[in-house]
């Protein structure tokens, strides 16, 4: 099992989510983050005080996947999150020792297969 943790542009979230769903990856956790990389940073001014915004808004996706889904998840993100300009973000692949589904206590592969409701 792996945890795919991707930092992407905020405005790309919609596209990436849609691409993931199309790739049949339904379980994902999203968090708002701020990133610093090679992007030009913004300058703001408040009544005389000039301020450099070192951080720009990004979004992180965390996806627990089985080994067999790993490549698909990574490639989907790489493809759908790319704009080609500096600041597109990173994908980290982290080893997972165990995954549990809280509702059932199921483990690992069975824990990350989503159950569709209302479909």
């Amino acid at each position: 099992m792996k945890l795919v943790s991707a930092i992407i542009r905020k405005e790309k979230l919609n596209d990436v989510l849609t691409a993931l769903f199309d790739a049949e990856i339904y379980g994902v956790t999203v968090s708002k983050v701020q990133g610093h990389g090679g992007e030009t940073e913004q300058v703001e001014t408040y009544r005389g005080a000039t301020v450099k915004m070192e951080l720009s808004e990004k979004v992180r996706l965390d996806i627990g996947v089985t080994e067999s889904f790993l490549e698909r998840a990574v490639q989907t993100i790489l493809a759908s999150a790319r704009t080609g300009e500096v600041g597109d973000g990173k994908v980290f692949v982290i080893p997972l020792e165990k995954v549990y589904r809280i509702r059932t206590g199921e483990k690992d592969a069975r824990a990350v297969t989503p159950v569709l409701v209302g479909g």
Partner: protein
Amino acid sequence: MKMRKLLPLLGFLGFGFAFAQADLNAANTTWLMVSTSFVFLMVVGLAFFYGGLVRRKNALNTMMMSFIALGIVGLTWAVIGYSLAYADGNQFLGGFSYFMLSGIGLDISDGIPVLLDFAFQGTFAIITAALLSGAIVERMRFSAYMIFIALWSVLIYAPLAKWVWGGGFLDRLGAIDFAGGTVVHINAGIAALVLALMLGKRKDYGKKAMLPHQVPFALLGAGLLWFGWFGFNGGSAYAADQFAVLAMSNSLLAPAAALVVWAILDIWRLGKVTAVGLATAVVIGLVGITPGAGVVSPVSSILIGALAVLPSYYVFIWRAGSSLDDSLDVFAAHGVGGLSGALLTGIFVSTAWGGPVNGSLSQFFIQGLAALIAIVYSAVGTFIIAKAVNLLAPLRVEDKLEAQGLDVPLHGEEAYSDGEGALLIPVKAGSSTSRTPVTKPLGTKA
């Protein structure tokens, strides 16, 4: 908008003047139009006062309870409420002659267009209904609330207004209620108490911390309420005279005193002054001075503001530790504060300041008696109406919705939103949208 100036040009010269009876008092009319606008703004203030104190997930639902009262009670007041309160009738109920505003034209009474009396009084009816929503936020079904305030404004508010202000029996008893201590505040406070008891406490009450999600909104609300209250109390003089000035000036002093006393109590008890406390103190000071605003001296108003805080302060503390989930303390602020004010008015009322009598023990008891009658009527009436509404639409939402917060399930909206991860569902232009949009299996392209 310059039309009126041009009437002569347009050939209907003198037409406008035909209406302008000699007895219209333009200054008093101006003051009452201003006051009506100010009381209106209190409803917006209340939406923010209450809305800021609830949790984020119920912010819209809470605010909408005030806004929808503008619509519903605005209409019930026009249809029948004003008639029941102020049309000729007996000591207990007005007549039906103003039903649907019939019979109300552009005529003037006591220097003021009757229509203005209707509008001014209408804003009082609206805010009274909106006030009680504070007791049942975060769990009352919105549709039940709408039906409830429609009935309540007609069956409870209008008769009480008749009794106290419309020449009814409480008026004849000699009870003094300058601007609505009994009709508005005690009434709303008691109804709130009854509703809170009937609905029961929120699931999280006493278990989890339920913190105000935006205290600045509560401060904004308190500020707008105070501002509007200058019209509420000042306008109740029904003239731009010394009594209006007295009422207005007392409405500045009483809450000032309440603020300071509350700050002292806070420091003494907690070592710190709280913002929610200050906002609350403002309201209590204003509630306290309401019944006597135009009939007590400025120094008395300071005393009333200071004294009215004390019982309410302790009711607040008691309530927070009790199992009574009067969520935003309508009872403590308006019920208890209104009663304190009514009784203190009996003591401080002074003929030197325009009062009909001087303060006395007997006036104190008259005030108490009138309050008691209002309390009983309001409590019993609220109970019956709520029971009746419950048959139509359950008063309380399901526990699951309560846990989720009411904004999304009941109103389909969030107060604050980023739109992240929200996908647009295309609606074919012109097509009538379905009531329950189909939820598609995830991952399926829409």
